[in-house]
């Protein structure tokens, strides 16, 4: 199949599937579920086909450019490269698995499924669009279904959580909108004023924005993306959203939505404002480290199982920010120092995104499995699940170990690659980030001890703790299998990502060099004026 055509299919297939759901009989919930599962599965298969057809050496595969709103230079412009492709496949996978986990949703099934498919469409669009405006549109498209999915199918405090989620994200996207307009005007409203590739190329030649403007634009973009990531201190929407969201939505939220923050930073913020990015690099790394430590400490104090996993997401996504930002330059020449280590950090961060997408999806699913049975999540009222649900507990242990960063599972590679590449940026922050591994082990093992180990179950509804069924086992086993494959042979991912990331890093470094020279010249003039 034509890979260029594939991209549009990936975006619109779920939408078409959602539309066709309308012809189903409202009462036949299972048929609709199977249909939606089929649609997500087909989307996933298409994404895998795309993966198979993608040649990492080719770089960006640009496709499907056509006019949309020509008077404002807005195009329908899609493309895929080594940075977005793994995330696209991850989206397909997590959506499929989350759909398989959606059998527990019994309220307004059709509405749920339609929103779910729309959500997938939006996510795909975000990862595939190369037009800033299109990106923004998909970003918002994905927001609304999420709001309803949390707000309608959520837990007791669903309205609060949904509104919190919505407001946080909306605040971020407003900042992004401002930045987008800055780029629009900085590009001189030329034909490519929303074309991310053209903007990035311009930025890499130092011709897009002045250094000062770049810093502003970067901060706006970064805050927008950091909210999504989520980074300390704008993370507080996450625990609430996770706790209240139904299990499949938590899986999507942790598995894909959080990745959009990181993706936005690496796809938009860094290439478009390299000077701003480098200027803020230390701050970014510091935020990353604080997120790691803070999230881990906060997770340690939780008594709600899901909230604990949510805080672990904060901690894990801190590594992403950390890895992205370890960009060190020579203060006088503006050359990038130790670019290999930075690339390792970038790659590690990307890998961590995928790995977290696998492990935390699995963890949320595992929490959901017991929640479906006993309808509570109080860590102190569990125990002994290993005896009652042995296979489930084994799979859960595997997935939790993946989250803990155990070698041989995916979480380890991302975390460790990021951490060991950090020393060349800042030894102090590197040491702090490494301390995260202790805390991570602490909260995950402690949680596992309280839930799975122990002599007996101490909470309500002990009779409901039946062994996991085939569907649940399949979802968990698939996730665990992928976690193992990625952990044992990470090159399968790195080989795809590395060329694109390298190209991005090189272009950004180049852009920084130009802007640095510009800034130096300006500073020199100011100094001269002062001397006079």
């Amino acid at each position, binding site marked *: 199949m034509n890979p260029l055509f594939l991209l549009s299919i990936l975006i619109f297939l779920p939408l078409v599937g959602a539309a066709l759901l309308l012809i189903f009989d409202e009462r036949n919930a299972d048929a609709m579920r199977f249909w939606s599962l089929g649609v997500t599965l087909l989307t996933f298969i298409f994404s895998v086909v795309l993966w198979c057809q993608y040649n990492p050496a080719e770089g960006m595969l640009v496709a499907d450019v056509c006019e949309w709103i020509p008077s404002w230079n807005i195009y329908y412009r899609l493309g895929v490269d080594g940075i977005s492709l793994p995330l696209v496949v991850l989206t397909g996978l997590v959506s499929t698995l989350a759909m398989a986990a959606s059998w527990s949703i019994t309220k307004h099934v059709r509405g749920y499924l339609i929103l779910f498919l729309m959500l997938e469409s939006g996510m795909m669009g975000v990862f595939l669009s190369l037009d800033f405006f299109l990106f923004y549109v998909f970003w918002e498209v994905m927001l609304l279904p999420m709001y309803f999915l949390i707000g309608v199918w959520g837990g007791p405090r669903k309205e609060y959580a949904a509104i919190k989620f919505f*407001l946080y994200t909306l605040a971020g996207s407003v900042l992004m909108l401002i930045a987008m307009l800055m780029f629009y005007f900085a590009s001189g409203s030329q034909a490519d004023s929303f074309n991310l590739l053209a903007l990035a190329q311009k930025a890499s030649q130092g011709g897009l924005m002045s250094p000062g403007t770049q810093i502003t634009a970067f901060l706006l973009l970064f805050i927008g993306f950091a909210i999504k990531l989520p980074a300390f*201190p704008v993370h*507080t929407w996450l*625990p609430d959203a996770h706790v209240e969201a139904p299990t499949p939505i938590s899986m999507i939220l942790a598995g894909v939505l959080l990745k959009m923050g990181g993706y936005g930073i690496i796809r938009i913020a860094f290439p478009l404002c390299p000077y701003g990015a480098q200027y803020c690099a230390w701050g970014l790394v510091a935020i990353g480290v604080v997120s790691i430590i*803070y999230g881990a*400490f*906060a*997770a*340690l*104090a*939780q008594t709600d199982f899901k909230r604990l996993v949510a*805080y672990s997401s904060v901690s894990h996504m801190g590594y992403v920010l950390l890895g992205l930002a370890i960009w060190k330059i020579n203060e006088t020449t503006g050359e990038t120092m*130790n*670019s*290999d*280590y930075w*690339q*390792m950090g970038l*790659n590690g961060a990307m890998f961590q995104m995928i790995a977290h997408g696998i492990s935390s999806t699995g963890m949320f699913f595992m929490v959901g499995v017991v929640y479906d049975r006993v309808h509570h999540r109080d860590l102190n009222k569990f125990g*002994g699940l*290993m*005896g009652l649900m*042995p296979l489930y507990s084994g799979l859960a242990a595997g997935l939790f*170990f993946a989250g803990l960063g*155990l*070698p041989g599972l995916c979480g*380890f*590679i991302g975390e*460790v*690659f990021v*951490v*060991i*590449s*950090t*020393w*060349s940026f800042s*030894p102090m922050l*590197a*040491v702090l980030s*490494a*301390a995260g*591994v*202790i805390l991570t*082990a*602490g*909260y995950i*093992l402690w949680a596992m*001890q309280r839930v*799975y*180990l*122990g*002599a*007996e179950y*101490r909470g309500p509804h002990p009779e409901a703790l039946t062994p996991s069924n085939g569907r649940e086992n399949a979802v968990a086993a698939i996730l665990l299998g992928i976690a193992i494959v990625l952990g044992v*042979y*990470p*090159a399968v991912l*790195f080989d795809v990502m*590395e060329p694109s990331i*390298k190209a991005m890093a090189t272009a950004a470094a180049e852009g920084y060099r130009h802007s640095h020279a510009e800034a130096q010249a300006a500073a020199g003039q100011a100094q001269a004026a002062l001397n006079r």
Partner: protein
Amino acid sequence: MVGETLRNLLLIAWLLPLCGFAVEIFGGFWGSRRSRVAAWLAVGCIATGFVCSASALTIWGNANGWSVLHHAEHHADETAADGHVAHDSVTPPAPETLAAADAHADAAAKPAAEPDAQKPQDSSAAATTAHNDSADHDHQHTAASPAARTVYSGTFYRLATFGSLELSLDYYIDSLTLVMFTMVTFIATCIHLFAIGYMSEELTEEYVDHHAHLRNGHHVHRPGRFYRFFAFLSLFCFSMLGLVLAGNIFQVFIFWELVGICSFLLIGFYTERKSASTAANKAFIMNRVGDFGFLIGLMVVWTYFGTFKFADTVDVDGHVVQAGLFHMLPRAADGNVIINPENGEVQIGAAAANPGNTHKTIPYYLLVVAGLGVFAGCIGKSAQFPLQTWLPDAMEGPTPVSALVHSATMVAAGVYLTGRFYPMFVQEVLLTIAYIGCITAFVAATIAIVATDIKKVLAYSTISQLGYMMLGLGVFGWGAGLFHLVTHAFFKSLMFLCSGSVIYGCHHEQEMPKMGGLWRKMPITAFTMLVGVMAIAGLAVPGLVGPGFGQLFAFSGFHSKDAVVATALAYVQANPAHFLLFILPLITAGITAFYMFRLWFYTFAGTPRDHHVYDHCHESPLIMTGPLLVLSVLAAYCAWGGEQGSLYLLITGDQPAYVSHGIPAVAGALTMPGHDAVHAVHHQAGTYALIAAFSGTFLAWLLYGSGKVDVAEIKRQLGGVHGFLANKWHFDELYDALFMRPTHVVGRFCASIDRLIFDAILHGSAAATVLVAKWDRAFDEKVVDGLVNLLGNATWSAGNSLKVLQTGRLRQYVMFIVAGVVALFGVLLATFPR
């Protein structure tokens, strides 16, 4: 070819247990819970692994003509003849050179070797890079290396590449690897066999766990988990062998964590017991604390050296593409690391071969940091002071686990890594290692004196012995430390298995005060235990220890501990300021003998103290006693010949080049004793150690064996000390207060920050928004809407008042029309008057 053969053999030995694990873990699905199939599968895997390892060792030896053994004999003779020559010479010949020469003399080595071997001595800088213990592929070796090829390395597969940085899974096969492989697989095989007997109680659908209680006071009933135990054991074997085979420090870290998690799984095997799962968590988390340091070490190494590989990477033409870690640190001919005196930085050797490495030098202090970091990992794994507290708790696991994981192999991994990473340790690090080991040995030994749980005693003894190994390594006794590692693996696994046999025989009674006189009930166990105790105590018959059959009177522990103590003595003689490094181990040697014999007397000798236990106690079946007997032979005589024996020579066959001749002090630094210096004090140290051991033994006999002294009275009189020791020097309490509680407090603090600050800000702004919205609403309703309504009302009332004009009466309308026309005319006339 040899390299490939070795690699494949070890690969099989390494991966078989993993395959075993993959099958066994699902034992609950394909087999009955009463089936032993899983166990035999595990045994088959690990036994095949042992066969492969042993074959690999043989092939390796044949490939180099067993040159390490030959060279050592010559070397020993030579040094015995004129011990000071080598020490005084400015550029002492490298042992490999000697080996090559010897091999040449035996017509077993390459003819062209000797001329090449002379080159390294010309320039000190080149000396480091040309040492051959580094080399990679065979064919490359043939051309470049002067001595017999003993080190083989290469890459399994690549994990990731970033520019010039590459991470991969490698292998590094030298004599130490092979010895460790053989040792681990052999001991594991024995322990697997023993475990078939020990874990047979799990072969049931309804296992009653007497140590786990439900809330209603009943014991936990659960299905047996026989297969799962062996699955975890297999996984552990895989991880441990991977650790040994690892060709780069990152790979070591990977398997380091994996053995950690296996240990976690095995300690927490009885998941129903709170104490077990807590101990498992404690073990893993404390290991992670060490790994935190390990990571820091990795960071420094990675940042400054740009590679993790031990060995050089060569391309097909034999050119070094990237230098390995072991050849990056420039050492002068005397073994000292060359420091640039101006800025305190160390030139990274062969940096030119690492194109992506931007750092050409490394500050010396960072070398110390890197070394200490990696050693921190070893502290965690080997339960050294101050991270020693997890190991006694780890005895919650089944006894075979304690034997394999927590005494013989995994905890020794820390020592192994210290030995493996030795070329990267500078002397400050070594001094730290020595002190840590020394303190650990002493502290643990003192606690062991008062421990009453039979496994706890052994656990503390393990810690203590690991401290010995670290001490040995720290005082430049590379061979001594690792020698002790291997011998200790044998006799400690033996003793643990014996204790397991006792526990099994006594129906899970572990408290020694309830035992006594058991030798009558379980003679094989008692006998083999005695062998182990004598071995660990380092007993030998004075005067009879000598070559040949004299060895019959000296057990392995004697030799290895002797080596450690002798090295320590030599070190202290060279550096008198650090006299503690000799005194404490010597005292500890006495204590060791004391508590080990105390254990034996307490358990096996004397009269039964608890007749209930005694009456129901029985000797274990053959599947358990068999491994005991095999191990007891090896525990006694594996070190046959001591430092001239083949085991020691095999271990030290590929020791770092500068180790054997020591490092002279430069500019106030420490002097590292060479083999000759050690040899010179060997008899002296041996004598001291033996005296200490005998004193300890005698004291133990006096207190516990003779029955002439009231132990309780002594305990009462030394109550304070006893309490202090019995509470393990209060380390647990200390850590609880220092780390655990603050961590939880900080955690709660963070969580409440989220709740009380961030969310409060959010809620505050939300409330403010609502307030503004309320004002806005009021404004809208009162002002804007008011205006609009006013307009509407006005229109309405105007229409209402005009409504009356619409009378519906035809005639009026006509009137209106007429009047309108008239008015129109009037207006026209008024407006446009003619």
